[in-house]
């Protein structure tokens, strides 16, 4: 009897990580984890008719069905070709992306069933969270070897990924023994916890947790992907006693965050107003920093209460407006990045452009500006940067996209305009330009007119081009500068 008691005491005293590590699940994981080989083939931002040089990368795929794996969206951004290697086979299996969502940084990849062989064993992601607990992570090498590493769960945070604008739930593992990231499978108590999205020099890794993955998989299930809730407003902390007094908030009302800006897209954009105080979302009280107490994850940002939902779900906001509390209910909204006035990224497709008389017009995106290289924020023309910084989330019917004159490919037709660049297009042939699609329409206006006239914002000089020369000049410019097509405007 004493012996039994001793054994129980021993088990209870053992620190958890050692316990978890005792059972090696590497062999089992070989049935569910695959190696992804990705060839990337994006486009040049400043010569958008040209592909960038081919590059190669690798990632980890985690099975969610017999022939489906998930990985991070960032792993397969601008992928031209994806090959998959299973642990039990030497040959590559062709694969394609079926759903990709850069906002929650997840991609669903389907493996070619004909060359799949034995189906994969789907993983069930567990929504457990234990602060401080040991975690193991796994990835498969190209040589079919299952690697593993260790760390511990340090915190739950609400953060954006490398390119996304949405703040999503992220677990951070600290003291990790390998910093490969790229979709490695993290396990807690030998149960799948999430997949790695980033790592840093401080031996930390970001994990896309089960909650985010399971929402994504549930959303995918019916064949229509709705996406996560997008936040449709900006907040600013509400600490100043003078401001609370001005807003006539009673002394006992200490919570709430100030709504400092409203977008034209996203959740709450149609019902919230600048100057409202957001007191709670779905019953969770927000503190003056916009954070709330989550039963599992402690104090985290309010964004989670929106980005953890699927577009179309109900959401309720309790606000302070006109000196009183109000409860408003609405539906969670999602917007695709392409709906932004200045999209934060444009991936997996050719950037939109049109070349008129050698003058290159492009749609303004963050990726376009980032093409200027390191410290681009301090280099780009402030008038253009202002659209990204202050207007990006505010498209309107009159202004859906910002079109810029990128630069001119010197030719006789544009003599005198060679040095013009980085101007924002206001109108063409008298028609206000709302988006790329307007340009061909505007160019067809006034058929009797001798010239196309392109006017810009900020009192920049206009560009006047002789219509009778446009076709021949276009052909010559395309030949001279090696351009296969003079425009790429998405339908």
């Amino acid at each position, binding site marked *: 009897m004493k012996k039994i008691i001793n054994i129980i005491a021993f088990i209870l005293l053992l620190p958890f990580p050692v316990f978890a590590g005792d059972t090696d699940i590497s062999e089992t994981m070989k049935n569910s984890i695959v190696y992804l080989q990705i060839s990337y083939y994006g486009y040049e931002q400043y010569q958008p008719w040209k592909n960038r040089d081919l590059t190669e990368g690798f990632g980890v795929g985690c099975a969610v069905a017999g022939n489906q794996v998930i990985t991070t969206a960032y792993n397969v951004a601008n992928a031209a070709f994806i090959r998959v290697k299973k642990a039990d086979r030497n040959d590559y299996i062709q694969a394609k992306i079926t759903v990709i969502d850069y906002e929650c940084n997840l991609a669903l990849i389907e493996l070619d069933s004909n060359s799949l062989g034995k189906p994969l064993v789907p993983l069930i992601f567990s929504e457990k969270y234990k602060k401080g607990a040991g975690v193991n992570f796994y990835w498969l090498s190209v040589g079919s070897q299952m690697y593993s590493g260790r760390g511990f769960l340090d915190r739950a945070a609400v953060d954006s990924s490398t390119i996304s604008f949405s703040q999503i739930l992220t677990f951070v593992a600290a003291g990790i023994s390998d910093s490969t990231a790229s979709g490695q499978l993290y396990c807690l108590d030998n149960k799948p916890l999430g997949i790695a999205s980033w790592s840093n020099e401080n031996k930390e890794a970001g994990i896309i947790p089960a909650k985010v993955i399971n929402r994504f998989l549930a959303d995918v299930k019916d064949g229509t992907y709705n996406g996560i809730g997008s936040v449709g407003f900006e907040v*600013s902390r509400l600490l*100043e006693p003078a401001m609370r007094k001005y807003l006539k908030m009673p002394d006992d009302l200490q919570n709430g965050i100030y709504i400092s800006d409203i977008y034209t897209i996203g959740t709450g954009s149609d019902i919230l107003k600048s100057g409202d105080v957001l007191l709670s979302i779905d019953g969770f009280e927000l503190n003056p920093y916009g954070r709330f107490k989550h039963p599992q994850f402690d104090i985290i940002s309010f964004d989670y209460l929106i980005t953890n939902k699927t577009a179309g779900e109900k959401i309720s906001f309790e606000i302070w407006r006109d000196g009183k509390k109000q409860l408003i209910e609405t539906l969670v909204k999602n917007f695709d990045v392409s709906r932004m006035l200045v999209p934060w990224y444009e991936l997996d497709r050719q950037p939109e452009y049109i070349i008129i008389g050698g003058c290159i017009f492009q749609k303004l995106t963050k990726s376009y500006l980032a093409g200027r290289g390191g410290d681009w924020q301090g280099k780009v023309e402030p008038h253009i*940067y202002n659209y990204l910084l202050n207007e990006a989330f505010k498209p309107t019917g009159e202004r859906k996209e910002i079109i810029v004159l990128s630069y001119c490919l010197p030719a006789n037709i544009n003599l005198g305009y060679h040095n013009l660049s980085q101007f924002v297009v206001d109108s063409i042939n008298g028609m206000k330009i709302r988006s790329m699609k307007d340009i061909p329409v505007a160019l067809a206006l006034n058929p009797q007119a001798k*010239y196309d006239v392109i006017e810009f914002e900020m009192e920049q000089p206009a560009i006047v081009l002789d219509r009778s020369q446009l076709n021949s000049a276009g052909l010559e410019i395309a030949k001279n500068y090696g351009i296969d097509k003079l425009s790429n405007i998405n339908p």
Partner: protein
Amino acid sequence: MKITAISILLLLVTICAAKPDMSKSVVMIQIVKQPFDYTTPWKQTSIAQGVGSGFIIAGNRILTNAHNVSDIRYIILKKENVAKKYPATVEFIGHDCDLAIVKPTDFSFFENTQPLSFGTLPQVNSTVSTYGFPMGGTHISVTEGVISRIQTDAYVHTGADAHLVVQTDAAINPGNSGGPVVLDGNVVGVAFQGMMQADNIGYMIPTTVIEHFLLDVNDGKYDGFGSLGIMLFAGLHNESYKDYLKLPADTQGIVVTSVMLNSSAENVLQINDCITQIDNYDVDNDGMITIYGQKYHLSEVVETKQIGQSVNLTFWRSGQKQTAQLRVQLNRPVFEIARLYDNPPPYVCFAGLTFVTANRNFLETWGKSWISDIPHTLRYLMSDSPQLNKDRLRKEYVVLAEILPDQMNAYADEFINKPLETINDTPVRSISDVRKAFENKDCEFYILKFMNSEKPLLMDARQAHQQNDAILKKYNVPSWAFTENQL
């Protein structure tokens, strides 16, 4: 034989004229400087000492560079081979052309000296001598070089002005600044700046600019170089553009793309006017005219005018040829992009919030790479204020530069470096407007709205006034407001 004699005589005259005794004309200027702090504007920054050069000109004046004697606290003049030090003051200073006139307090300084006279714009490839005190030293140094080219270029002292400069390969080093560049015994320029990345490229201010400065100060004050208040575009190289503007095929000229708010050009010129002549100079498609025997930008005509004088313009508008007179004015942008010197910067420091005028000096407090490091809104205004500002009454932009921490302003840090738009819905168009707004105690709150920020900064008016003196005292601020009216 006779001819030879005359030739020798002429040669002797030339040699005599080319070698005046420079020790009687070139002076050493020892200086102590202390600029103002543009973030904490009631303070002055560190003290610096240096040496520059200057030279005596007619009328018992000493000409030197403005950058030698800007933000000056103390000046001493020294003559070659004379032990006595002569304290001096700045009589006139033109920062935009980097020239200044210094005068000793004791006029016995001019005993046994010789003023230098001025020549004209030198020919390229002529040999000139530069005199001064490079890198300190006790004796006048002379270096010889040739004139490499003459063109319009930036004057780095203000960072925002451009005038004609003469480039020479004579070494111009720190300390040379303000010294004369001499050709055939006459001053043809004032040495003033060099090029860091290049060997032996030095620049001098030509006599065209010096003459403008000397003529300007004749009335007892310096007004500066003016402009026409327009932006121009060299677009007529394109025949379609020319035809679109209804210009005759053989027209040469330059097109107006922007007319500055409150400039004299507002009533004279319009966008898309094409200027073909300025005074009697024909303007070409690059905006160049033939002046001083060379092609220079048409602004060279404006450079010859004093503020208030006019130029005659011939221009085309909607197919019609027109003429008009246009007055030359200062036309400074509401966001001052030229570096300022000498005057203490105006400010308002209320409830621990320090407001200053947004200008280049303030932006340069961000350090070497300030252009890329400054906050976006300030960079936007600096670069585009002529297009962005539609308010005729705006004098300047005001920015919250610093917060002197106190419970009163504990949560105001999110507004730092933002330009102020209104206080209690009254537009802030100058730093004086901020002072006036806070002088008004007849309100419960001060509601401060900043650009690109929907959320206002709120202050309890009564509390703010109560706390103000204690904050000023704690942080040794001499006065809560120092605005233009008090300068």
